Structures are given as C-alpha cells and as structure tokens.
C-alpha cells in the first residue's frame, strides 16, 4: 500500500505572536515542529507499511525551512519526502494550499491512500484535508480514530463524532484525517536521526508542477485574514469567603439573581 502523508510545520509552543500588519503568525525565532496530528498520520502510515508493505511519502508546502520538518519525518522512517516550495506559494489560504498539494500529489502518481492530521494546531481550520480530497475527486473521512485494512482495497474506519462514533467502510483510493486517539506516535530512533541527515528532501517549485499559477499562493486564495488576535485572558473570578453556610447562601442568592437557577 503506497501512502501519502500531508504534513504542516507549526510553531512548537502555544506562545505564538501575530504580526499586526499582515495578521499572520510570526514564525521567526520560534521553534518549529511537525503538527502533532500529522505525527499521528505518519505513525499510522508507518504501521500500515510495516503490515502490508509499500512506501510512505510525506509531502508539505512551505518555505525552505520546512525541510527541517521533513527531515524529522525521515528520522521516523518514511521513504520519501517532498517539499513544495516557491515564493509564489506564499500567503496561501487553505484552498490554494490544498490545490498546490493536489498538484504535488498528482505528480507522485502511484498512491492508494492519503493521510492528514485532523487539523493543524496553529490555524485550527481542519479544511485542507477535505479540500484536497475534493480537488483529487476521492472520498474523504474525517476524525478517524481507528483504521483497518480489510484487503481487496477496502478499509474500515471509526470516525469520532460529537455523540459517539461512526463505523464506515470505503475503498481505496481515499483520504483520511486522523485524530490523536488513533495511535501513539513513535519517537525517532538514533539510527533514524543519523540516516535522516544524509537523505534528500526533494524540492518542487511552480515550474516543476503541472499547475495553474492563478490558483496558488495569495493570488489563488479566496479568503483573506482580516484580523488575528490573542483573546484576552479570562479574568479572575470572585471568591466568596466565610463560613460554609453563609457562603452557600450567598452563592444561591447570586445564582438566583443572575437567573441561572430559579
């Protein structure tokens, strides 16, 4: 089974800052890492390969420093890493990102399954996976927490839903977005880390792809970020002090006044 995993490089910490002019994340000077849900996608791909053979290819779109994330993917044991990088890809929204990824994946040709993390922890949109499946015209199943290969190009997945779970069967090729419940990602072995250093991350720009330049980067984006801001921290609540009886009476009174209880 040949699997493509789409990954995104994201800031390592929750302490991100936002550029007040461009309304995008300031990426300079922040440790970058593979989006945690994408690590689950890589892990699942590696486990499928260990069972059913095949190749795992990891693809990402981003600036050249994204190579570091792809090297980390090599250290985990994937077979091939491709970085879609071109200054014309910059400023992409989810749609033009999905379009660009689809062009890269089309160039890879031989694949059966695409895995993505359910969302990236920086933008939190959860859109690229489903959009990619739409462009490639293949089925998509999101929030997958369990995946079974049934043979004969059929898979069964458990999707997490708000009320429980949904068990669905479909056939390959298809695209899945996975949750962190699906597995516990491995840590790279020392041999993996040493070997990753010597492996090549293929870099494809606009001219390497069959691609419509009007649909990539900022030009191809149909959404524009107006404002990104850090929500103000929740203010400290009021603490009622005194003897338990008095405090509870006061609490009930306040709740009644606020109309929370009658």
């Amino acid at each position, binding site marked *: 089974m040949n699997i493509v995993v789409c990954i995104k490089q994201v800031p390592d910490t929750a302490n991100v800052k936002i550029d007040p002019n461009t309304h995008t994340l300031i990426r300079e000077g922040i440790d970058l890492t593979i989006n945690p849900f994408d690590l689950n996608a890589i892990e699942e791909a590696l486990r499928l390969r260990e069972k059913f053979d095949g190749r795992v290819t990891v693809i990402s779109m981003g600036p050249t420093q994204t190579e570091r994330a792809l090297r980390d993917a090599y*250290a985990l044991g994937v077979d091939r890493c491709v970085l879609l990088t071109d200054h014309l890809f910059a400023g992409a929204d989810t749609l033009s990102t999905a379009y660009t990824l689809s062009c890269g994946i089309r160039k890879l040709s031989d694949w059966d399954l695409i895995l993505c993390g359910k969302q990236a922890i920086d933008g939190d949109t959860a859109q690229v996976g489903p959009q990619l499946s739409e462009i490639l015209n293949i089925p998509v199943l999101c929030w997958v927490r369990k995946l079974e290969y049934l043979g004969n190009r059929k898979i069964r997945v458990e999707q997490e839903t708000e009320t429980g779970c949904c068990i669905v069967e479909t056939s390959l090729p298809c695209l899945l977005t996975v949750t962190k419940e699906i597995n516990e990602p491995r*840590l*790279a*072995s*020392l041999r*993996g*880390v*040493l070997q990753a*250093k010597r492996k090549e991350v293929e870099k494809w720009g606009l001219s390497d792809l069959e691609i419509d330049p009007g649909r990539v980067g900022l030009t191809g984006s149909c959404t524009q970020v107006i404002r990104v801001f850090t929500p103000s921290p929740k203010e400290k609540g009021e603490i009622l002090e005194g003897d338990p009886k008095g405090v509870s009476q006061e609490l009930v009174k306040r709740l009644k006044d606020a109309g929370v209880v009658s």
Partner: protein
Amino acid sequence: LNFSLTEDQALILEQVKEICTEKLLPRADDIEKRGVFPKENIELLFQSDLMGVFLPEKYGGLGLDFLTWAMVGEEISYSCTTTGAIYGANMLCVYPIFAFGTDEQKERYLPALVKDGKIGAFGLTEPNAGSDAASIQTRAEKRGDGYVLNGTKVFITNAGEAEIYVIMAKTAPERGARGMSAFIVEKGTPGFSFGADEKKMAYAGLPNKELVFDNCEVPSTNLLYKEGRGFRVAMETLDVGRIGMGIGAVGLARRAMEEATKYSRERVQFGQPISGFQVIQHYLADMATEIEAARLLCLKAAWMKDRGEQFSHIAAMAKVFSSEVCTRVTNKALQIHGGYGYSRDYRVERFFREAKLFEIVEGTSEIQRNVIANYVLKAAG
C-alpha cells in the same frame, strides 16, 4: 582541548534527551514504588538504538564512540537510574564480546544484545570474592569438547531477565588470577539456574540474583578469549564499566540538584523563597561545581578510551569521584528539602538511597583508590 560536540553527537544527544525525558522519566517513580522490572523502558532502548552506541554498524550498533555512549548513559540515568543500571550491566556483556570475542561470537551475540532485544549480564562477584576478584571459586573444568561449570555468583544485575551472560570461572584454580577464564553462557543452558532476588536499599525494579551453576556444560566455542586470560577480560570490561558508573552517578546527581533547585525557589520560609538565602545558594553552587567536575572526568576517560590511550586510572578517578559527588549532592538535595526530603512523597529520598550504590558497585571506592595509587606510584618510577 576541544569541548564541542560533532554534528552527529549533537543530533544523537538531542534525540536521546527527548526519548529519556518523555518516556523514561515519567515512569521512574512508579518503577521504584512497584518494584517491577522496567520492561517497557528496556524495549524502548533497543527500538531506539540506544544499546549499541559504540558498536560498529555491522554488529547492529551505531558506529559511534565511547564518548557518545557515556553522554547517552548520563541522560538515561538522569531520567531513570534503574534503567541506567540495566543499560550499564548490558554493556558489561556487550563490551567483552566485542573486545575479545571471535568473529563467530560477535556475529552471533552482538546484534542480539543491541538490536534484537536480548539483555546481557556479567558474572564475576561471588559470596567470598568481591573486591578480591581473583579469589573466585566457580570452576570450569575441561571435559570433552567443552567445559563444565560449577559454582555460585551473587548480586548479578539483570540476572533472570538477561538471555546472555559473560561468566568468570577458574580453569586452573592453582594459578590464581592467571587461572581465570571467561565464558558466554546462555539462559536455559542445563545446569544454569537463578537464586532469590536480592532485597536492596533502592532499585526495587532492578534484578540482582544469584547465578547457580550445577554441572553446567558450555561448548568450547563459548570460551571468550583465551583460557587463563579471563582476569584480563574482566578488568578491561570493568575499566569501561567504571566510566558508565561514573557518568550514571553524574546523571543522578544532576537530577537531584535540579529537584533541589526547583524546590528551593518554591519553598518559602522567613518570608522568602529559601533560594534567597546564601546558605542554600552555596549548597547549590557546590553541587553544580562538583557535578561539572565529575562529568568532565568521566568524559575525559571515555575520550581517552576512544583514542586508544591507557585510561584505567582516569576511569577509576571518574568512578570514585563521581560516585562520591553523587552521594554528597543527593545528601544536600535532601537537606534542602528539609523534612519533606525525608518523606517518601518527595523523590530526593529515592535519589539519596540510589546514590549509595555507585560507591560500591563495580569496584568500591577503596578499590578505585588502589588502582589510582598504583598508577601514581608506578608513574613516579
């Protein structure tokens, strides 16, 4: 002098730190509390290629050096001292096979010991032969195409869990140290069994058992190095082991200091965090200084080993100094914690108990001083 790491060493160390602090460290308290062998940790060490750092790649190792191996050991011991002890004892089986084994022995045992998940152990100590290692009584009698082993080993780390053992026995008791030979003995060999687990002051999850050899037949292909040269095998193995013990002590001491530093900033007395008092600051300063000095001694010994230099005396200095530093540092860390430090609710109490082992195991402090003094006197001519 150059204290910088190579690119490979830096990469390895960063990854090892992640593995140790994410996986080993959170399990350490529980391992001591429940007193169970940390199987999961050891499996992780094998899967992550931590077992064969200094071995050539053809034997399943990473093809790096003893310096890197030592730095890896510090991180393991920092996160979980019990796991560090198992790692160290495994090396005592890997090293002699690597350094003294035939090609067949290396091919047969080394990949198993660093890649395929088979744990190793080393058996020298006996009820009446500790510091006086040459006085062991376990016999290996030549019979047909092999040897028959009889005798008892004690305190053997990894016993029972290990699959492969390097065992010292006398092939010619009348010749003393020169009558000693080393053998590779596999678990399951008829006549080879285990005694009860030793109840220790700490390391509840670390197996230390008796090995009992009762007419245990070992093929002559399992003789390690030459007949009568076992003492050399043992001593060289222990020289390397001392670097491991020293750096293990450094790892534990560093951990204890970090716990004490953290606590001293949280604990408020007389209206301020106790880290504001000069007495506590001086404790921390001494701890940090001694740990730094101990680490440098250990790494120097490893570096000399890598360069093929005579390093026994530096390894002995590294072991005696680091282990005594570890005892002092864990003692001070406990003192900084005051009454809470004496409580089992705080882990410095465990560190204090764990530290003592380093002054005893793999050659007591007194034996290390003998080694160092011999060198000093010889060097003086």
